[in-house]
């Protein structure tokens, strides 16, 4: 009797142990900005990826594939913090891939570690041109700033060639990258170019705007984040009228709503991001996303984040188990179906995307022109 009990006990323990083994999870890390300036985008990103993760895990469970676990951490837009996080993700948590970061400065800081450890890193929001050269394991699902800046530069040249120009930009990798890409797209520099940088966290832009008004500048290229709300407001109060050229941060209706009509007439590059289309095409995803985001609508960067997750899952479903295998599949695949349409990666790991021009009319984003061939 005792022998039977003991044998049964051993069998049960072994069965339980085997069950634990088949429940091993695949871990993916996510380094996002969940506090400070752009936290809103980090939070919607995490909600969107988690919503898609739920659906994908249901599919994986039906095929008896291991579940994916998403580990999220906040880089606070600080490169040093991002570095600590990715080291922990890779060395302690054993992630197979990392999604992130948002800020280019953080992505550039963590890229060498991902490259060294041969772990795929995919950003859904970092646009700095330097990321294209950050390594073979470094990808992004959003367009490079070079393309965005070049698109606006080409538009300026087509419509306003030679007219005095001002560039107001945030003094960081993002702002400087876009400024440079814009100016490099011009075949001839205009006779007057006012270079007006502002520090991160600035709230008073009256001096920059006063200089523009004083010099009678009629075309202004604006590169910033949330503070653009104040820039437009202060421009209106100062009686400044000009043609505004914007950046892709304007591809966010909730930001435009805060501006009222002060940003009307702005032309900016958009991502062919059609929220209504996503809601119709992916109803289950969107329903879950709204619950996780407490009702905040999806923005384009959250959608890019989901695309990053989709391509990693695709590689895993193809049998990839290591970072190198994931990387190879990402480069070899000619078309991924993402939330924002089909895309692939070029030899630098940059997503090849369509970029259209949009305009703000009566506080709403409307299509302006479809971009010419890339």
């Amino acid at each position, binding site marked *: 009797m005792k022998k039977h009990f003991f044998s049964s006990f051993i069998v049960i323990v072994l069965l339980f142990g085997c069950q634990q083994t088949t429940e091993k999870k695949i871990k993916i890390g996510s380094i996002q900005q969940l*506090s*400070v*300036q*752009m*936290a*809103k985008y980090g939070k919607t990103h995490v909600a969107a990826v988690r919503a898609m993760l739920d659906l994908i895990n249901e599919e994986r469970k039906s095929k008896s594939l291991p579940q994916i676990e998403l580990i999220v951490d906040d880089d606070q837009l600080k490169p040093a913090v991002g570095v600590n996080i990715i080291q922990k993700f890779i060395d302690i948590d054993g992630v197979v891939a990392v999604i992130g970061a948002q800020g280019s400065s953080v992505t550039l800081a963590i890229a060498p570690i991902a490259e060294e450890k041969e772990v795929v890193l995919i950003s859904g929001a970092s646009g700095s041109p330097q990321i294209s050269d950050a390594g073979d394991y470094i990808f992004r699902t959003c367009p490079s700033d070079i393309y965005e800046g070049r698109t606006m530069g080409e538009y300026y040249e087509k419509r306003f060639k030679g007219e005095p120009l001002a560039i107001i930009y945030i*003094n960081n990798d993002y702002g400087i990258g876009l400024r440079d890409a814009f100016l490099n797209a011009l075949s001839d520099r205009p006779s007057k170019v006012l*270079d*007006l*940088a*502002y*520090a991160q*966290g*600035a*709230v*008073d832009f*009256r*001096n*920059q705007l*006063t*200089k523009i*008004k*004083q010099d009678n500048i009629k075309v202004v290229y604006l590169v910033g984040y*949330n*503070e653009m*709300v*104040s820039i*437009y*407001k*202060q421009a*209106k*109060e*100062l*009686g400044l009228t000009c043609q505004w050229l914007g950046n892709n941060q304007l591809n966010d209706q909730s930001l435009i709503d*805060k501006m*009222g*009509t*002060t940003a009307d007439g702005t032309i900016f590059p958009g991502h062919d991001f059609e929220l209504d289309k996503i809601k119709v095409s992916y109803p289950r995803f969107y329903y879950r996303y709204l619950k996780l985001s407490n009702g905040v609508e999806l923005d384009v960067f959250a959608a890019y984040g989901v695309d990053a997750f989709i391509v990693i899952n695709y590689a895993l479903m193809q049998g990839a188990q290591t970072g190198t295998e994931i990387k190879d599949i990402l480069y070899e695949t000619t078309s991924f179906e993402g939330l924002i349409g089909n895309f692939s990666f070029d030899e630098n790991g940059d997503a090849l995307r369509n970029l259209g021009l949009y305009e703000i009319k009566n506080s709403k984003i409307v299509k302006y022109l479809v971009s010419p061939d890339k």
Partner: protein
Amino acid sequence: MLQFFANGLIAGSVYALIALGFALIYSTVRFFHFAHGAMYTTGAYLAFTFFILCEIPFILSVGIAIFLTALLGMGIGICVYEPMRRRGASSFVLLIASLGLFILLQNLISLIFGDDVKTIRRGAVQEGYHFLDIRITNIQIIIIIASLILFIITTLVLKHTKIGKALRAVANDYELAIAAGINTPKVVNFTYFMGSALAAIAAILISLDLHMTPMMGFNAILYGIIAMIIGGLGNILGAYFGGLFLGLSQHLGVVFISSKWQDAIAFSLLIIFLLFRPQGFFGKRIERAQI
């Protein structure tokens, strides 16, 4: 050029209020109360809560926000600094405590309200009034006038009220004030109350004109400190003029250099004054200073 002068006057008026409140507190407690920056942010967000979220009439919302912020400032003095001081904490220890409080309150506001840009201004944005080649909005005019009125009120309180005279006595010599029978804890509580109220008013004014974020207190307190040093450490009213001088210097300075160096102008002024005139414009030359 006139527009830059107007821009500087507007900014300087806000710095002056922050510096006035900061200097009031410093004059009696003799340490840098960094949490003053958190009082600034709290004032703005309380006004936002009552006016925008609770839809309480504007004047009432602002009044309640100022009063609660002043109470909070006084509460910090009574519940945090005073017990530490009684246990013999040095000025440096109190400074560290105030820095901790500043970060804690700032993060609390960020947690509750989120980090995105907010405003307590309602209605469509209008072009400013136009005269003498200057554009200025009604809010900006109110900022300049309100700042001046509060400066006058503070001057009158300090010179002609019992509590004001007691405050000046404590600021002059703390130990002698005790010996003279002045209720120094009451005076110190009053300065925390009044100083925090001034910070809240400055924040509400700036939030009506620009926007607010949980991080807004950091720059505010830095400029407040610089303005106080320019005006003269220990000279409460001098801090007001230090604020005006700082605002005008920053904004007139960018006429000649790139706007990205605007903050650098402020810190350059700080270094210049510390090196060549550490007593500021109106302060007395001092043998030793502590932060």
